[in-house]
């Protein structure tokens, strides 16, 4: 049923004429800290040697990590370490918690992540990437609240008159290990719309294997990204990130 709903939402694509132009209007940084749409990763990577430092606000209503009781701030740094490899580290901390003593050992969450681009986007074929979040905890058996292991494809298309660019992403997240919680599990996908003349603003919608999310990305002064997101139609989240070109 869920798959049927997803396909229904993607039917909008049919109205677009597939163009063979490969065009990059910059990639966005998702709430999770890796290059992606709003909540999902894409198969594209930022330019080689791009370092992105940012923070996301995560709403408690959709946050399993905090038992749906506390909002959280996720600070992250992500680097395009090689043209085909992105590495990241995220530190997520619940906010507005009552004071917890040392003995309770309530630790914040550390989440390393990677994305490996297997195929680059070409005229008729999408980019393909493999990725994982929180993969170290699954090896060491530690806290593991944001696990996801996925394969994802991304293709950029244009409308017939080339007035609107589309970045379409489809992916699937797999069960690996025995984490507390899978951040992504099963099918996910999304679309980003950009007017080529105004690449600093884009509108996005994605399905993160649980919820539908909508939002905008504003990219200002070639360095600053602001991304307000409405998740599941009612919960606000957002992120702020700064891009450094090494």
């Amino acid at each position, binding site marked *: 049923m869920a798959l049927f709903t997803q396909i229904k939402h993607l039917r909008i694509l049919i109205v677009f004429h597939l163009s063979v132009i490969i065009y990059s209007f910059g990639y966005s940084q998702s709430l999770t800290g890796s290059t992606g749409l709003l909540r999902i990763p894409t198969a594209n990577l930022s330019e080689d040697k791009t370092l992105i430092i940012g923070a996301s606000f995560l709403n408690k209503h959709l946050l399993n990590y905090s038992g749906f009781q506390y909002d959280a701030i996720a600070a992250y740094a992500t680097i395009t370490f*090689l043209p085909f490899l992105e*590495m990241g580290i995220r530190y997520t901390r619940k906010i507005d918690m009552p004071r917890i003593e040392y003995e309770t050992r309530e630790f*914040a969450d550390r989440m*390393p992540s990677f994305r490996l681009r297997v195929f680059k986007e070409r005229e008729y074929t999408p980019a393909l990437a493999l990725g994982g979040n929180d993969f170290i905890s699954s090896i060491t058996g530690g806290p593991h609240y944001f696990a996801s292991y996925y394969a994802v494809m991304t293709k950029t298309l244009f409308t017939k008159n080339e007035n609107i660019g589309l970045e379409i992403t489809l992916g699937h997240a797999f069960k690996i290990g025995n984490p507390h919680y899978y951040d992504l599990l099963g099918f996910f996908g999304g679309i980003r719309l950009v007017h080529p003349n105004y690449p600093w603003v884009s509108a996005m919608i994605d399905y993160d294997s649980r919820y539908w999310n909508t939002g905008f990305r504003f990219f200002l002064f070639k360095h600053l990204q602001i991304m307000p997101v409405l998740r599941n139609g009612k919960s606000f989240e957002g992120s702020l990130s700064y891009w450094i070109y090494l």
Partner: protein
Amino acid sequence: MIGLSDIKNLTGFIFLLLLCQFQTAGAGDYDKLSYWMEESGFENIQLNRSGNTLILAYENRIFRHEADAIAFLLHEMPLPESDEIIMLPKYLNIAMLSIQINSINLQKYRQGMMDSKDFLSKINLSQNTDYYIQKTNKNLTNPSCFKTDFLIEPMLSMQLGNFDRPIQALAEVAPDIQIQLNKGLILNAQALIPIYNNLKSMEGAKVRAGIINLSQNIRLPDNFFVTASIGTFSYDRFGVDFKTKKYFLNGLLGIYTQMGYTTWTNVGNTYEDRYFEKDNYFIGRLGGEYRFAAYDLLISASYGTFLYQDKGWRFDLLRQFDDLIVGFNGILTTDTYNVGFYLSIPVFPKKYANINKVRIRPSHYFNWGYNFRGQTYAGKNYSTGENILQKSRDFNPYFIKNQLIIRL
């Protein structure tokens, strides 16, 4: 009457006179260049001519990045008459790299008749300096010996903790005196001064000694580097350490070893001092590394004994982003495993003042690392401070060429 023989003698005399004048003019050019190099702040300068080749060996202690110094020289240095220029950048008065430049191409590049890409393609960079070292002038201009560098290095120890102290940190400054005593011989004396401390495991940390040692760095023929150190190292160790590294394929492939015997010392006061054993330990490691020149990427693996006698592997994936270094490491020992990352962030400024006798400057880099398992004895290794093996990475011919592409 002037006879034919007199004309011949006169012609010979004029020729000799012209030759002498030419040579004098050449020597003048060389003196001018030597003076200019000294005025610009370069040290351990050796300048001479071999045939029609100018051999210029120098040590840069004014630019943070070696490629900046090379680019500066290519753009600015006065050019004496020669067909070819060989530049030999040094570290501790030891030549690390040879750069072969055609003088006409350099003139053309300077006059805008040749673009930088074309010019760079005609420069030959080699890690091997053996041939030219034999031909360098033995006289040293502006020697570095006993010139004192007083470094201020920022240091940070950090732990992501529980909610009563979610981020624990010990921020320190580490003043470090470095004196070059002889060719390759350097004295380090470092102190650690806490500035901010809420790191639970280091509560009450006071001003204390850091790395205090004497290191002899040697370059042997065929790209073989050696460092021997005696004194105190990090992790409160006192003893001797011996490292070697041999390069192949013009610096793309390297094999390295480390041997050391240390005991605990109480001159410092670190986390390990408080929590780990204080026995005498032998350390022995063997490793190899390969450089993917297109990305300035180094991949390395080593096996052997770590500081606290656990045996195992260490893997590193390191990329040099211009001045910034980002690396990831993995430890796999008989007892446990660990992963982490480290950064070497350049510290402002890019250029320093010349050293007269004493100079105060910030350290080149702020180094910081993070391991996912912080409170473990496993996979530790002490640091002996900067050495020729580590510096050889900054002088790698492929890395320097990639950096010159950006700078020229």
